[in-house]
């Protein structure tokens, strides 16, 4: 490798020839080269700290230019969808500013140096007197440039490009050496960061799946218990209710205390039955009866069901129903149950009034079935961070003393899951909490 640094390019009458560098000059060149190698080593360590592939590419261009004495510098990657093309990453413009160039895509064969690397499987190419271009492809000067291949194993995955447009410093063999080393170091780090990112994405996905499994397992346990518990509890409740009916008919109407007692007993049976009904929502008998509906109209009818609570708490409703939404296949009763639950939670968060904002819109990803989204926002205090990931847990409630069973949101999630949709709860930046319900649209996106 070092042999190239012991020679220099001399231009005689327009022809480039290579001559050995004289001793003193050679010594200086060697010292300078070693210094650059040392800086490259340090640069490699610094770049290894990048937290993402994007961060690595940006730092490589910024620091590579600064530490290694390169002029304009850019990184390009082979388009994995069509390997005849390369896609820009980061680069330095004509004013020396680092810029993201991800929108640029050019054919490899358009650049003779890249074509040469591709054909000869070369590590780099140094060319002199070539036209140097800006982002738009316009020629902005003439000079030397180096293209160094970024390898991943036996495959070229990209290119590091540098030229001398800005400072006009002649590029020589040692620059090519440094560019090669730099591309090699960058290639290793790039592969590493890519692997890290994939690993992180897989880990996050795994965590999400694990969380879903835990939620499903909890829901399944509740579901399994539900039928059994319902049967064992509802039968005694049925006897009690029949008994209350009997006593009501056979108690003197003038006996107010007896009438009040029976009324309270009836209320207690009703409450206990309500809890059991909540459990039953998990059971196999609670099948979905799907019909095609307009989500906005289901939301409107659900709002009517909680109108009393809304008025009582002096809550203002802001509606933003996004035009004509694609229809959704839902079990209207169940989705009303979800919406009422979400509305009541939001109302609960605003005992002294507030604004309940309801927004619906559709998302149409190309070639995929679209999504119809409903967002429900309140202006309450929001949800404490330490309980945010527990709100869907069965029996988890912050309102146990006021009769909360901790099943409302668990059931809501269960219902949304069974619709192939989702429910998400988060705090909004300024104030309050936001619930996002996503439903599969019956219509596919634009092709």
């Amino acid at each position, binding site marked *: 490798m070092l042999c190239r640094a012991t020679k220099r390019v001399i231009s005689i009458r327009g022809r480039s020839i290579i001559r050995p560098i004289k001793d003193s000059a050679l010594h200086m060149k060697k010292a300078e080269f070693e210094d650059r190698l040392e800086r490259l080593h340090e640069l490699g360590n610094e770049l290894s700290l990048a937290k993402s592939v994007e961060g690595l590419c940006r730092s490589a261009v910024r620091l590579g230019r600064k530490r290694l004495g390169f002029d304009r510098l850019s990184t390009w990657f082979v388009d994995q969808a069509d390997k005849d093309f390369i896609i820009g990453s980061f680069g330095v413009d004509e004013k020396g500013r680092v810029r993201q160039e991800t929108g640029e895509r050019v054919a490899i064969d358009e650049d003779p140096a890249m074509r040469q690397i591709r054909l000869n499987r070369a590590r780099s190419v140094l060319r002199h007197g070539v036209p140097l271009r800006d982002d738009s492809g316009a020629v902005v000067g003439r000079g030397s440039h180096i293209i160094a291949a970024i390898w991943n194993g036996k495959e070229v995955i990209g290119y590091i490009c540098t030229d001398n447009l800005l400072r006009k410093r002649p590029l020589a063999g040692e620059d090519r050496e440094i560019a090669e080393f730099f591309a090699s170091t960058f290639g290793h780090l790039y592969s590493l960061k890519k692997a890290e990112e994939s690993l992180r994405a897989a880990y996050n996905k795994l965590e999400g799946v694990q969380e879903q499994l835990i939620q499903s397992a909890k829901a399944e346990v509740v579901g399994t218990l539900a039928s059994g518990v319902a*049967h064992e509890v*509802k039968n005694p409740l*049925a006897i009690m*209710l029949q*008994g209350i*009916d*009997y006593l009501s008919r056979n108690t003197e109407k003038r006996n107010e205390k007896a009438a009040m007692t029976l009324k309270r007993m009836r209320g207690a049976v009703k409450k206990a039955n309500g809890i059991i*009904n909540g459990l*039953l929502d998990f059971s196999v008998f609670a099948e979905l009866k799907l019909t095609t509906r307009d989500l906005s109209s289901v939301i409107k009818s659900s709002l009517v069901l909680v109108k009393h609570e809304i008025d009582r708490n002096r809550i203002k409703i802001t509606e933003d129903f996004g035009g004509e939404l694609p229809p959704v296949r839902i079990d209207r*009763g169940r989705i009303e149950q979800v919406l009422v639950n979400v509305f009541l939670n939001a109302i609960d968060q605003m005992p002294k009034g507030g604004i309940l904002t309801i927004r619906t819109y559709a998302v149409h990803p190309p070639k995929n079935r679209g999504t119809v989204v409903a967002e429900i926002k309140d202006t309450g205090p929001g949800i404490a961070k330490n309980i945010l990931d527990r709100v869907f847990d069965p029996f988890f409630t912050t309102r146990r003393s006021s009769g909360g069973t901790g099943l409302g949101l668990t059931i809501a999630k269960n219902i949304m899951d069974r619709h192939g949709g989702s429910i998400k709860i988060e705090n909004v930046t300024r104030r309050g909490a936001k619930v996002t319900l996503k439903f599969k649209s019956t219509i596919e996106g634009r092709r």
Partner: protein
Amino acid sequence: MRKGNGAGDPDNQETINVLIVDDEKNFTDMVKMNLEAAGGYALKVENTGKNALAAAKKFKPDLILLDIIMPDVDGGTVLFELQNEKTTKDIPVVFLTAIVNERDTSRIDYRISGRPFLAKPVTTSQLIECIKRNIRR
């Protein structure tokens, strides 16, 4: 339906004969008491699934209230037996069960084995309304 003249039938209207099959004796006794007190109903109680068919053949009810989960023979099997017997196959059956919600029962298109059902706990007035709606005319 036949002419009745029992207790709770002062106007001598037609008495509706109901067979209730449920393993919860306390419950069936209460239902019998309340419906008969309401007037116009004669109830036969059967607390085992295995004897339900025989009771239906003998009593010839206008409607059967049938529990689903019973320790010996479940309601589904009883229904199958009733449907396979010439003298009982046309008797209306309403499932009376503790494993569904009231909300499910309010959906008119919802059936268990093609039959309507009532969710326990149920009030006497709900029972009467359901019997009237489903009785063989």
